[in-house]
């Protein structure tokens, strides 16, 4: 049995599938799939065709990629704006014709021919843009028709000029340089393509026009309601598409110097395949320049490889069609189901064995009803007071779900005011020596509030660990904090895998997802000091100034960690196998500590924690609101000595006022209670304590 459990523990620690969910949750996963497909294709192709990766072929491929990639980028821009441009193939043919007529037939200087080509492309794009943007025609059918029109124009003009085009060669050094020149060993056209690609990437991802374009593509109606000029944005997308196609056509003309009757026929299918393979979603909003280039390279290598394998053109056509269908199918299913898959596989349970605590006759946790007569503060006026703290003037501070810190004024705590607006739910609170209020804000980081109520950020990131897939430099759920005598701030981050709203899901994993972090105001640096903790929650500095106590909620234990002094780095469990889930820890009078238990363990959930396979199945098969969760509806407050001895336990037997408590705080003979899901703060007079004790005096030796 023990061996079997060890096996389960091992299997769910090292082969838990946690990474699958984490990788799926990354945004680069969209781009990773085309890259993998490209690598696989290159692998297969270079196996089938020995000389595929030779230098000469690579240079040829680079020139082709410059032209094909520019058209793919043109289509990418249009698709990201929520439209489509099927006319790129015919537009390309027309622009090639314009360039060759300019250079070969009319013998115009290089810049003039370039201007004519670009003008031709822009005019074609403008026609599409006006029709689709301003007249609001349907993009697909409209560009299908302009495809026919542009093609017909080409078919009318080309035969009349074909011999004139072939008959003369332009005498232009720039033209030849464009077609055959190299910069640092790279073809000129490829360099031009790279520069344009970077410019488009920066525009789409960093500049306002690009954001507007993606907004229109992602949610046209919202973009319209947000005041974006949708019509102009869409129109400009098509004009840009025309312009890029014209550049591609100019490069193509310079390289080949002639054109045929079939130039650009079927190009739209190849380009569309490239773009969709590159992860650009039809319907708009999603996609990237990098993905498009990967897709374009893939299609080019595939078509070139097939030509070198001397397969007939119909096979090529068949294969491109099949790939296009598969890519669109995958895209449609991926966009629709990614979230579903993620929610199924993200929860990744581990094995956690919590031994049953022996019940003795003089069990310190015997039920009593000492919290029956609490005085209620702010009933209905606060929501989610996770932590409570009092200042030197006996005013009471607490955070609320609304993202504010509320101050209840002494002596009767009837009047209250909003002390500071933070924006996130403030959890742990602690006063610094200079009177600043420090708070851990869920989803944001550690913040400082001056006595005047001015809010400033203390830290919102820590060092990134090397092998974490999740970006653990960001603080997701800072929970509680305390301040060392030298001003260093130690705080706990409960989990790096879940956001504030899903904190309870971490209970299903039972894995060490949390950590202790230290921020040193002297250097301004934030560093993780202890990782792999199971939902570290409450934290308080011990009176020796060299160690701290911290509670691990789902592991039901309290540990002590020395961060300074002769024992530096030592960590020992002070209190293990608690009957409930410990939350915040605070100092109390007479050298004791107060710990709040937010819920009690149940045999069912303990069993579930020893059955990771069961929890995994549960998370995959049934809806989240039917999952088995730990009991966080009933808890108590306990007082312990520094060595872990339980001195006192206070229960609310009736369960009316404080069934679940996340924080307690002693102040001048009273004990105050907060609860993260409560709408009240409670206080009760403690009979056997030092009525003058305050945390300020205990910490900083002042009254």
């Amino acid at each position: 049995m023990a061996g079997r459990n060890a096996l389960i523990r091992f299997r769910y620690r090292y082969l838990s599938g946690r990474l699958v969910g984490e990788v799926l949750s990354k945004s680069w996963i969209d781009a990773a799939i085309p890259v993998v497909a490209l690598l696989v294709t290159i692998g297969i192709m270079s196996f089938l065709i020995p000389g595929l990766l030779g230098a000469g072929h690579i240079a040829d491929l680079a020139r082709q990629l410059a032209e094909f990639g520019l058209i793919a980028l043109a289509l990418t821009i249009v698709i990201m704006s929520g439209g489509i441009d099927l006319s790129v193939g015919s537009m390309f043919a027309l622009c090639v014709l314009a360039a060759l007529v300019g250079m070969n037939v009319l013998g115009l200087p290089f810049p003039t021919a370039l201007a004519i080509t670009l003008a031709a492309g822009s005019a074609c794009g403008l026609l599409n843009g006006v029709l689709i943007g301003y007249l609001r025609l349907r993009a697909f059918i409209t560009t299908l028709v302009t495809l026919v029109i542009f093609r017909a124009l080409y078919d009318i003009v080309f035969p009349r000029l074909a011999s004139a085009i072939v008959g003369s060669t332009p005498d232009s050094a720039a033209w030849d340089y464009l077609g055959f020149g190299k910069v640092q060993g790279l073809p000129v056209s490829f360099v031009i393509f790279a520069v344009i690609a970077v410019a488009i990437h920066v525009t789409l991802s960093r500049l306002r026009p690009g954001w507007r374009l993606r907004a229109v593509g992602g949610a046209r109606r919202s973009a319209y309601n947000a005041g974006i000029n949708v019509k102009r944005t869409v129109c400009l997308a098509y004009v840009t598409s025309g312009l890029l196609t014209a550049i591609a056509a100019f490069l193509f003309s310079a390289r080949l110097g002639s054109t045929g009757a079939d130039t650009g026929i079927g190009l739209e299918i190849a380009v569309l395949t490239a773009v969709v393979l590159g992860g650009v979603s039809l319907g708009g909003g999603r996609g990237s320049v990098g993905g498009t280039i990967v897709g374009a390279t893939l299609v080019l290598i595939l078509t070139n490889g097939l030509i070198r394998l001397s397969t007939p053109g119909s096979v090529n056509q068949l294969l491109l069609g099949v790939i296009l269908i598969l890519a669109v199918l995958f895209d449609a299913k991926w966009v629709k189901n990614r979230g579903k898959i993620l929610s199924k596989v993200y929860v990744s349970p581990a094995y956690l064995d919590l031994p049953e605590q022996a019940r003795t006759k003089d069990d310190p946790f015997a039920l009593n009803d000492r919290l029956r007569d609490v005085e209620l503060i702010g009933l209905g006026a606060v929501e989610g007071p996770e932590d409570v703290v009092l200042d030197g003037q006996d005013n009471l501070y607490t955070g609320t779900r609304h993202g504010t810190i509320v101050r209840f004024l002494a002596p009767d705590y009837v009047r209250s005011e909003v002390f500071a607006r933070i924006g996130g739910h403030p959890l742990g609170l602690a006063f610094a020596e200079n009177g600043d209020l420090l708070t851990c804000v869920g989803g944001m980081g550690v913040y400082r509030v001056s006595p005047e109520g001015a809010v400033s950020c203390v830290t919102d990131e820590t060092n990134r660990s090397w092998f974490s897939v999740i970006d653990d430099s960001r603080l997701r759920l800072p929970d509680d904090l305390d301040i060392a005598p030298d001003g260093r701030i130690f705080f706990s981050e409960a989990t790096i895998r879940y956001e504030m709203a899903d904190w309870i899901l971490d209970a299903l994993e039972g894995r060490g997802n949390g950590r202790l972090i230290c921020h040193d105001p002297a250097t301004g640096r934030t560093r993780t000091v202890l990782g792999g903790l199971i939902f570290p929650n409450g934290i308080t500095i011990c009176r020796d100034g060299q160690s701290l106590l911290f509670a691990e909620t789902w592991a039901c234990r309290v540990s002590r960690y020395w961060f300074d002094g002769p024992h530096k780095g030592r960590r020992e469990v002070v209190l293990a196998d608690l009957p409930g889930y410990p939350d915040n820890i605070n100092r109390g009078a007479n050298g004791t500590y107060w710990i709040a238990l937010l819920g009690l363990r149940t045999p069912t959930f303990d069993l579930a924690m020893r059955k990771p396979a069961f929890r995994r199945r549960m998370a995959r098969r049934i809806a989240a609101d039917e999952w088995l969760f730990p009991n966080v509806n009933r808890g108590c407050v306990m007082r312990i000595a520094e060595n872990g001895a339980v001195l006192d336990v206070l229960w609310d037997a009736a369960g009316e006022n404080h069934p679940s408590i996340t924080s307690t705080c002693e102040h001048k003979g009273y004990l105050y209670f907060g609860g993260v899901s409560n709408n009240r703060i409670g206080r009760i007079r403690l009979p056997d304590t030092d009525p003058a004790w305050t945390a300020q005096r205990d910490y900083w030796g002042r009254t």
Partner: protein
Amino acid sequence: MARPAIIRKDDRPPFHARLLRSQEGIVFSLAVLAFVLFAILLPGFLSTGNLLVLVRSVSILGILALGMALVVIARGIDVSMIATMVVSVSWAFVITRAGYSFELALLIGAVFAIAAGVIIGVLIAFGDVPPIFATLAAGSVIYGTGRTFFFTLEMQNVPPDTDWFSVIGQGNVLGIPTTVVFFAVLCGLFHLVLSRTRFGWMLYAMGSNPNAARVTGVPFRPMTVAQYAISAFVAYLAGLILASSAAAINARLFNSTMIYDILLVVVLGGIGLNGGHGSVRNVVLGTVFVGILLNGMTILNIDYTVQNLVKGIVLLLAIVVDSIVNPRDEQTSQQGDL
């Protein structure tokens, strides 16, 4: 607030005013105008022989447009029809030449066409692929499959010893070409299906509001598959008639602008691409108009490429008019609606 206008039959605007308000009316007027103009200006246009040629040449287009209309009414589109048509018919001929009986070969061709339609329908209904992409790519795949595996020659002649087959395209019934008769029969059949059967009503429901149709219990996915199967089968029938009348089928039709001609007929006839409205009457009207246009241009001896240009521009104008008559609203247009 203006009172809601209740138009009684006798208050309605006069016929000629109504005519120019809908696209259908405009096209009808244009068709009449073109007919009259050609009749006056072109000698030989009005001759019985030419008119028969006109009707015969467009009836194949009309039959294809019937299949397309069915799909378009349900807010789909099928641009793979030509590929299905040429490949299934060519394959049937190849099989016959290989020694099988002609009837069996025709049956295999039909099965191939329907299978292609079903696969396209499954991709659209179950794979959530936008119809236009599914059919565009499928056209390429079907044609590529045909050219790679089924036949190598572009031109496939009708197999010998099949005399009855030539009757389909070249015979006459009471002086009317059988091609036209087929078109008329199919028109009647489609009219019955669209206006009298539950299947037809569901098509309109799917086209005018797909989500509402789905919610109210229209078997959305089977219906979608059925539409594309039907349009593929109609394409096959049209291919048989075409092959019979020309004694051969040319696979190169796939690369021609024929699919745009079909769209031209459907859109010009007044079947909006947004789906949900239109009837067989619109197909007939579009067919006649396109027929007059093509015939007139041919008689005028206009170059084929210029004809393409004219057709493209006319189609573009038709779409512009369509979008003005049935405008899309910024607030209600569908996301990703291409």
